[in-house]
């Protein structure tokens, strides 16, 4: 299911996203759809892939503009 959140940690290799629901989701560079450059603070849409009860990974990450959130 598609989710939206803000990149709150990223070192160029891996990081975390804070979702609208205030959950922390992990991701790494290869999960960014087309390897776009993203920065801390960027808004992104993605899919949550739940791997263990308390581990969530973000896949197919795509940076979006704040306008797109309201579409």
């Amino acid at each position, binding site marked *: 299911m598609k989710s939206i959140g803000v990149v709150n940690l990223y070192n160029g290799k891996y990081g975390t996203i804070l979702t609208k629901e205030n959950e922390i989701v992990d991701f790494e560079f290869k999960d960014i759809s087309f390897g776009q450059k993203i920065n801390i603070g960027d808004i992104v849409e993605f899919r949550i*892939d739940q791997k263990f009860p308390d581990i969530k990974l973000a896949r*197919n990450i795509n940076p979006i503009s704040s306008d797109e959130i309201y579409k």
Partner: protein
Amino acid sequence: MNKLILLLPKPILKNYVLAHFSELTVEDFFEIADKVKFSKYYFEKNDKLNSSSDVLSYMLDIDPYSYDWFDKNAFSAECIDKLAALDVVIPADIDKYPILLTNDKILESVIKAEPNIVKKLSENQITDKVISILENSAYIPDYNDIIKSPLFLNSEKLLKRAIEKTPELILKIEKLSDTLVSTALKKGFIPEKNHFYTIPQFKNYDELLKTAFANDPSVIVFFSGDKLSTSVIQDARERGFIATEEDLMENPSLCNIDCIMEDAIRNNPKLIVFLSKNVSISENLIIETLKKYEITKEDLENHPSLATTCLMNYLPEFKLYSSTLTDEEKKATLISYLKKDQTSIPKDLPFFNYKFGGKFDTKKLPELLNYLTLSLNQNDINVQQSYLQMLDKVIDGIVDIRYKKNKPSFLYPDLVSLNDALIELFKNVSITNDFELISKFADELSSFVEKTIDKEEIKKEIENFYAAYVNNQSVNFHISSEFYNKILNQHKNMFMSIEKQKILKEIENKMKLTPKKMNVILNGRKLQKMRVLIANNEFEQLGVTKEQFNFEIKNIKNIILNNKDIKKSGSQITMEQLDYLVDNFVKNGALDENTVIELLGIKNSEVIKYIVNKFEQIKIKLANNVMLSNEESFISTLDRSKLGGVNCSNYLIFDNDRYIDNLSELLLKLDDDTLDKILSNKHLLKEITCLLPLIDLIEELDVQTFINILSTYDRIRDKIFQNLDIRENVDYKDLILKNIDNLIQLGNAYNSVDSIHLIALGQEVVSKIGEENSSRYLEFYLKMLNKQKGFIPPISIYDQEQNYFLESGIYSDPERLLIGKIIKEGSCVDLFGGVSGTKTYEDVLLENSGDVILIRDKDKKLISRIFIFRRGNVVQLVASIYKKHSIDLYKKIADQIIQQSISNNDNIDYVFVNTASIQSRNENFVEIDDSRFVTKFPHADLNSAAILLSSKNKVSGNNGIELNLKFDEIPKVSYMKPRKKILLQPTESDIMRIKALNIVMENDLVEKERMSRDFEPIYIESYEKVICGEDWYIAIKKDGSYEQVVLQSKDPRTYEEIEQVKGLLNLSDDNSKSL
């Protein structure tokens, strides 16, 4: 000129001028030119005039052909242009005025008139126009023409003429064509072998090859594919062809031909290095050749495919190069090196080399070992104790993982479920007034916590809550949650305690006993054994003679008799009494205190103990001589369970052998990518390397998990520590150990495969192939989906006798991926089964000439498989050697195949089963021995004999056994795959699989990402109706609209089915939504 002369009458002036022509200047000329007409011939006499372009230009206007009397210096560009414009026919001896040829028009006209003039032209002068003129002439170019200008090579017409005259010119032509080649051959050109080397294009022309081959059989070296037929090979050999080293290097496909290789090797033993795995040559020849030529390490390095051949069976010294080297053998090799030096493995270990199946660059190995090395002394008690503590933390962490994993399946996973159950109970009680329900519930909760909380205590609490419920019609969650937490915490404690015990039990059986404990146990067994040996007088097994034994007895008797302390104690012991003791000792193999009391009549316990010990010492002294068999030395699970648990006295918690074993296994699992990821974390690895000796003791911390952790350790570490308050001088290793559960879970999560891929394959398949391999299997599965037809008719059988369902031809069934895993884990017929096995896997699942019958039991669980291969008019069935079937079952399959061959007018004439696949022979069936049952089929542990199950002849009533096996015949019929039945009540995983596959198969990457991002689970109950076909589904919503997903399919039946279903359900396209 004198002005007076100009005034002379014209005739006189003319005479004068002509008499003095040679003296005239250009100025003079033009002064008199309009008065006197000059003939062109005169200009030869006057160098000034005949070299003047002005004069030439003037004369050209009068007489175009006057140019011939002028010097070449007179030919200015203007004059040349004028000459060209006048369309003067320039004669062939243009040598005098080569400059004229700089004008294209003149050039073309000259060449038209005399094409041979082209020989005098320079490269720049030969233009496309010139070539075109020559093409339209009868000009035949020669070698010099061709090498002068590349434009000749562009003219097939001119080249053809040249070749017609001189066929050997074909050797000079860079760009060949069929026309030129056939022209050369018609005109008698005979290509030679060396031509094909110098002009590689020659190999593209069959005619050249055939002609050359007719003259020289060694030209076969340039044949490939269909051209390299049996008859061609035979012809070449009959005319004396023996392949040389150059030949085999030029055409490696010759290395796949048995007879070619045999001849080559007999002639030159060194050529054995070109042997390919597809070749079968006699054992005698191999042995003889190896006597004459010694294969070296360099040979293997230069010809790595040798490692895949049967030759390796004869080269035990090169075993480590062999492609058949098992993982166990590789591991054993690594262990032997690491035991000598943990920091060093030879970089040139062949099985790590890419050429011999290695998966990573061995240059990186020393660096990796540097970070994974542990130099610990297993005899150091501090090391053992530290590892015991570590193990304890690891177990706690894993138990935590198990708790979280199992929690959703607990009867009461959380407060809410417990509260809901309680509310439900109270509702039932208040309706039925049956208070027994509360007692039952209390009993249930007491069982839930393994009776560690008394049922009555629980019942009392619930009754209190019920009382409150009756008053308020609700339960105060704040109050009741304390009770719930008590129950849940107790359950958790019990669960974790039980799991911990389970883990310790498992570990106990995997760990090595300490040497000391081992000694104690074995010595105890020896002493036990000695009782019997002594009682049976088996002195040899005691390592002594009868006399020596008696001597020991005599010694002991004397010692006891002369012992001062015994005498002081007042105990009177006679020799006769001691003899009685000896008799008893020898009879029973031991002496106990009661016997001593009885026989000696003494009561002094110290004396009694002394005597018993003395006799026991005889046994202890002889114990070293006693041998225990393997069975007698075996420490069983039961023995271990009596030792008192996992501790440093009983077991080697840090076991150097286990550490090296784990390290070896880890190295064998690595590939370049993973190794690079691990090395990128090298500066952190020391924090977790300590765990290596504890890997594989517990299921959750196996080698693959540890590799997952190593490769993403930086990420895991950051994740774990981001929520902790890290102070200075903190012990990171200790922190990590306290977070083992996170370490393991995050390691696996960060290396996990996208769930969409797992859903596309299905949980059943993923659980068997392993998540880490699922991406590769999925790639392969997509290729399987492309297969629409095959040369083997599909069969479907229900075997009543064994309740088996047999089915073939369902190419899209993902369970087919498991054909290497169903029967025996680690079978070579698998995607990662090694070169031959993988080829068989591909043949069965992707090729038209292969298929597999999947066998399922009554619960539709996959239990076995039978491969089917077709070669020409022969079909061969092959089962696993670990799961053979009865001939009757194979017969049923064969009969179905032959029936279909007849009804479809196919040319399958015979169906066999390989003798390696049968449980027992049956004299009612004919057995045929033919090496082609092996050589024509892929690797599948085949025998050269097969049983004839069914044939067209037999079916049509002809019982003759005359066989006409044509393995190379082209199949007449290909069979469409049968369609899977449409499911009217599919499961959610059926639908999700199609949805996931739809995403995986999407070619547009942007769209694929969007679809992935939007991927959601499907809940069937939210739909009115869901119908699922083999490669599509339709899900009708409650509002009448519907979703439709159709996989990219080349099968027209897909769309027919969908339209049919939509028609039956009255679904219009307006209401549809394709996903």
